[in-house]
């Protein structure tokens, strides 16, 4: 029973990674691609860690996987934020349809 739930979690993580990759190819400019990649990564690693915690043999291993998840959920949004800031500083242009509000 636990094995079936863990495999469903792995399948969900694979679907999340696949949706992130699809977003990398379908979306028009760098900023929206950043959004798709961030969502796919965070959800994929989260579901994979949940399945690994369910399958894990000992408590110290589950603690290690929880530490990985915690670090990942801090580091990945930070990295997306830094890349977006660097893109803004370098002057990367969004698509033509983007409406910018300037006061």
């Amino acid at each position: 029973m636990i094995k079936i739930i863990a495999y469903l979690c792995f399948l969900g993580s694979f679907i999340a990674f696949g949706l992130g990759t699809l977003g990398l190819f379908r979306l028009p400019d760098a900023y929206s691609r950043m959004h798709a990649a961030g969502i796919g990564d965070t959800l994929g690693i989260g579901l994979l860690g949940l399945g690994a915690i369910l399958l894990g043999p000992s408590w110290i291993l589950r603690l290690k996987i929880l530490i990985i998840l915690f670090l990942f959920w801090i580091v990945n949004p930070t990295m997306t934020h830094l890349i977006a800031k660097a893109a803004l500083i370098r002057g990367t242009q969004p698509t033509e349809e983007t409406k910018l509000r300037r006061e």
Partner: protein
Amino acid sequence: MLLFLVGLLVLILLVLLRAIIGPTVIDRLISINVITSMGCAIIILMAFLKEDFGFIDIAVVFMLCGFASVLWILKVLTPGDWQLRVPGLKGFEGNNEEEDA
């Protein structure tokens, strides 16, 4: 579980295609980021496939190395003391304008 591992490898090849055709430098950087997290996922799956749980520690170190590498690439790309200026190479000429196309 082997099926998920092979599927993740195929996804890594697709993201690498995005890194090759990506029009700006920022697209390639996002692709590096995604490849690092998929590699971390592959290492965790490999630990359960081989039943050798030392791989979990390797996943932590791999993720932190990816973070440090993206930080230093960003430091080279943005204006400051460490900015890379190559005259004649598009996007690295020292002004802050990103190239068209």
